[in-house]
């Protein structure tokens, strides 16, 4: 990996130091939001779905439009889980 911790600004490459600074701030900003946990509206939403009947009330038999037509914003497949999330 990179052992050169010296200032490297040529060709727009930032020093490791600057990258670390930015990374730390980004993580700190993220962590602060993550620490807020799951707002009620989302846990309730998922509970509701789970609680039987489903999102669209008691209507059944009629296939949901989303099931017959693929949603263009939802890709069929997420990236493979390579377990790289820390």
């Amino acid at each position: 990996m990179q052992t050169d911790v010296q200032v490297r600004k040529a060709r727009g490459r930032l020093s490791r130091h600057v990258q670390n600074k930015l990374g730390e701030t980004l993580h700190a900003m993220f962590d602060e939001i993550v620490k807020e946990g799951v707002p009620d509206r989302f846990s309730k939403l998922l509970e509701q779905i789970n609680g039987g009947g489903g999102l669209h009330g008691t209507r059944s038999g009629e296939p949901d439009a989303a099931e017959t037509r693929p949603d263009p914003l939802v890709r069929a497949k997420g990236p493979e889980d390579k377990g790289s999330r820390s």
Partner: protein
Amino acid sequence: MTLQASVREAMLAAVPSLRAFAISLSGNVDRADDLVQETLLRAMANITSFQPGTNMSAWLFTILRNLFRSEYRKRRREVEDVDGSYAESLKSHPEQHSRVEFEEFRVALAKLPPDQREALLLVGASGFSYEEAAAICDCAVGTIKSRVNRARTRLSELLSIDSADEFGPDHTTRAILTAGGRG
């Protein structure tokens, strides 16, 4: 439509980081929470297209990113919300400090083109690999790398961080790190 408990748990577990991504991407908590809600609804409506064993979090991030992009195209002519509505919305957290520094960072972030911003947030904050980020953004790995590099360079310019100094006075950075509550 019923959700398997495991699927529901996986979705729930992804919500905090999904929100962090949405808030940082849109710069607005209300809009971000609407994005998260819409993402969960779409995910549940399309749960059959989710392949078990693949990364639920990455799948949700993909949906949210696509929603944001399609919304962004519609709203392109509107001014980005960088007027402090985020800071405003956090008033219920009186204990937290370094608000000013985060705000400064967030304003700089909002000045990045969306493709650079999302690449940086995915790789630099959300913990995705370059490969995963490329899959989420539906582009080449090399494209993600160059977007992340450009984002970092631009941010360091906007925040006047140079190699020797931290931006702002020393205590600022320390405050940020403390507020980050790592671990």
